[in-house]
């Protein structure tokens, strides 16, 4: 505690550089350090979850069981999903927020620096606990990242208890992160930075943070109920005691659907920063973007049962959730139109971040279309739980969320490291990823429509060709991420010096400070640049 206080004081006085050695990282309260920790952690998790995905794709390369047993296959699908959602995508967004939000709004640091440190350092323990289940008797959780009861309660391996505690810890970490971001954005804006001048990344994160606060406790509640069912003889989800397994799905998706938006709204924010920069033109319809984000957030609470069209909901219920889901497509569509309108009659250049952003717009929209198809309840009876769904949510999350994170990383790397990126390597990474991602996930639409259920370790012969294609694509995509790693390391170690305004068209406070950003920025409140006044 003493050390913490000292570090904090050092930070508050703001005249010292970073501490030396490992202590700097363990006890840091500096938003840039913590942002860096989050980002490296999420990259590590991205590779871990990615290896699991490759194991899945390797097994599915050909029909028949070659590499792993079905039980282990299920553990892989479960861990892949959990790690990617809670370990890769969400921490990456928190990391970006940590780095960029204070710099965008002219704040010296996050509002609650000590809590910031805790919210990061919980994560490695949570994931160590979760990954350690792989080595336990009975194996890791094997019931899918949606962990439907009773497969995850009565029929779960003993390691499910560790899984539950890991989820609790991740939830606490996310909630603390969200509280911090809200407090920072609401309380630490530099004078003159009114809410309506807030960069869109801050806006989408603010709304995301409120979503997190609303739904992470519900997730904590649902896993607590599981824990009680497993160990304390309650019957929330156990039909034998008068409970209802379908209740689990309702509560889970009450969390789960907003969670989907938690993973995509910050991505909208990043893309809305990048496209104007490289189109050299202000974002079209800023106001609409903000309002539409708020509307998506509210509507996301009203559509959860579209994940469960086949559980036997009465006709009126199916219609309600179908209509509500279809309507949510409207504000989402508006965003895409706005991005396109921003590009229209701009003056575009295509550096690596822009390439990722453009790919995001196209591929996320494709994911949106398959989402719209899935919203149509009668047809969803055919799509539900097939590879069509797998294709849909991977289109939204990989070239959606993950591409947005990469675009953001490339966009802000000069600011973080002080070096420009090697554009040739960046473009190589982009094209390999773009091709890989499409070869992986596009054929999944076909195998899904042709009738292949998801989460199966082996499949009938008519699905063989496209599965092979998808597996090849997965390895292209997976290996090309090593180029990303190489790029990041190379950029940290050296390269062309980056100017304060690293990109020609970049606007915003973060581009007013030198690159790399000094350890302490905005110890005195900055003046807003001309463009933002």
């Amino acid at each position: 505690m003493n050390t913490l206080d000292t570090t904090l004081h050092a930070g508050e006085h703001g005249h010292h550089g970073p501490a030396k050695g490992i202590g700097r990282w363990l006890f840091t309260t500096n938003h840039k350090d913590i942002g860096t920790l989050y980002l490296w952690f999420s990259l590590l998790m991205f590779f871990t979850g990615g290896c699991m995905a490759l194991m899945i794709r390797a097994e599915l390369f050909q029909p028949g069981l070659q590499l792993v047993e079905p039980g282990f296959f299920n553990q892989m699908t479960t861990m892949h999903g959990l790690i990617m959602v809670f370990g890769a995508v969400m921490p990456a967004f928190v990391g970006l927020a940590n780095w960029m939000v204070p710099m965008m709004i002219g704040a010296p640091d996050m509002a609650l620096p000590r809590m910031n440190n805790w919210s990061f350092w919980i994560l490695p323990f949570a994931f160590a606990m979760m990954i350690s289940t792989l080595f336990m008797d009975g194996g890791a959780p094997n019931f899918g990242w949606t962990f439907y009861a009773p497969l995850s309660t009565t029929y779960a391996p003993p390691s499910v208890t560790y899984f539950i505690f890991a989820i609790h810890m991740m939830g606490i970490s996310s909630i603390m992160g969200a509280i911090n971001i809200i407090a920072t954005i609401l309380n630490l804006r530099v004078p003159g930075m009114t809410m309506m001048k807030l960069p869109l990344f801050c806006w989408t994160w603010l709304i995301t943070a409120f979503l997190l606060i609303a739904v992470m406790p519900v997730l904590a509640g649902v896993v607590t109920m599981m824990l009680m069912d497993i160990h304390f003889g309650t019957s929330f989800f156990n039909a034998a005691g008068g409970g209802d397994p379908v209740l689990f799905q309702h509560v889970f998706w009450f969390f789960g659907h907003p969670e989907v938006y938690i993973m995509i709204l910050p991505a909208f924010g990043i893309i809305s920063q990048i496209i104007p920069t490289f189109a050299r033109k202000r974002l079209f319809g800023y106001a609409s973007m903000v309002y539409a984000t708020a509307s998506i957030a509210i509507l996301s609470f009203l559509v959860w049962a579209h994940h469960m069209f086949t559980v036997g909901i009465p006709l009126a219920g199916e219609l309600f959730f179908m209509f509500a889901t279809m309507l949510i497509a409207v504000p989402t569509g508006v965003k895409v139109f706005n991005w396109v309108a921003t590009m229209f009659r701009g003056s575009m250049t295509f550096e690596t971040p822009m390439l990722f952003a453009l790919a995001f717009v196209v591929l996320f929209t494709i994911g949106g279309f398959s989402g719209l198809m899935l919203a149509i309840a009668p047809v969803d009876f055919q799509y539900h739980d097939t590879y069509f769904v797998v294709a849909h949510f991977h289109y939204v999350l990989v070239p959606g969320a993950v591409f947005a994170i990469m675009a953001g990383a490339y966009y802000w790397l000069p600011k973080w490291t002080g070096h420009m990126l090697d554009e040739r390597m960046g473009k190589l990474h982009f094209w390999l990823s773009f091709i890989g991602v499409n070869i992986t996930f596009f054929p999944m639409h076909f195998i899904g429509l042709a009738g292949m259920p998801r989460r199966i370790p082996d499949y009938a012969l008519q699905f063989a060709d496209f599965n092979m294609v998808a597996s090849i694509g997965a390895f292209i995509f997976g290996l090309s991420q090593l180029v990303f790693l190489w790029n990041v390391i190379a950029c940290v170690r050296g390269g062309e010096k980056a100017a304060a305004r690293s990109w020609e068209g970049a606007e915003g406070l973060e581009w007013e400070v030198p690159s790399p950003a000094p350890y302490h920025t905005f110890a005195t409140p900055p003046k807003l640049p001309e463009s933002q006044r």
Partner: protein
Amino acid sequence: MNVQADNRRLVRRLVFSCVLMFGFGFALVPLYDVFCEVTGLNGKITNTGPVAVEGPDLSRQVRVRLLAVHNEGMPWEFGPVDGLIETHPGEMKQTAFHATNPTGRRMVAQAIPSVAPAEAAEYLHKVNCFCFEQQTLLAGESVQMPLLFVIDKKLPEHIRSLTLSYTLFDISPEVSVAESSEKEQSL
């Protein structure tokens, strides 16, 4: 400092919202039951107890299918006496399920009812039934479990047949654990 006070107040509010939402997660359980009752979601039966019979509506006929389902290795023989009953809305019908424990040990079971289509659940009124009751059978013992029910006259027109299923769950392990702990306490 002003900002710090602001932060503290904000954090307090946000933490409070979290606690509230955590509670809301649990509140979803009873809310869901209410929701099921109102919308007939999931075919949970809520109407039990005495009912005033006002004479059947002979213009309509409803087919009630009775189903018996075993859960997880439940070895009992368990089934309806009549698999299919023709009735009129408003008519009181009596039938029964029989159960036999063919194993060599004492077992405790519990029967959970479910109605399909789910929206019909609220119109199926059970005057007496064995649902949610624990049933103990000694080795080789048999029992008849009576069921007395009325279908509400307000049953929507388009429902002409409905299914009432009972799923039999073996709860012997839970019960024996509870009993042994009770014994320990009484000792």
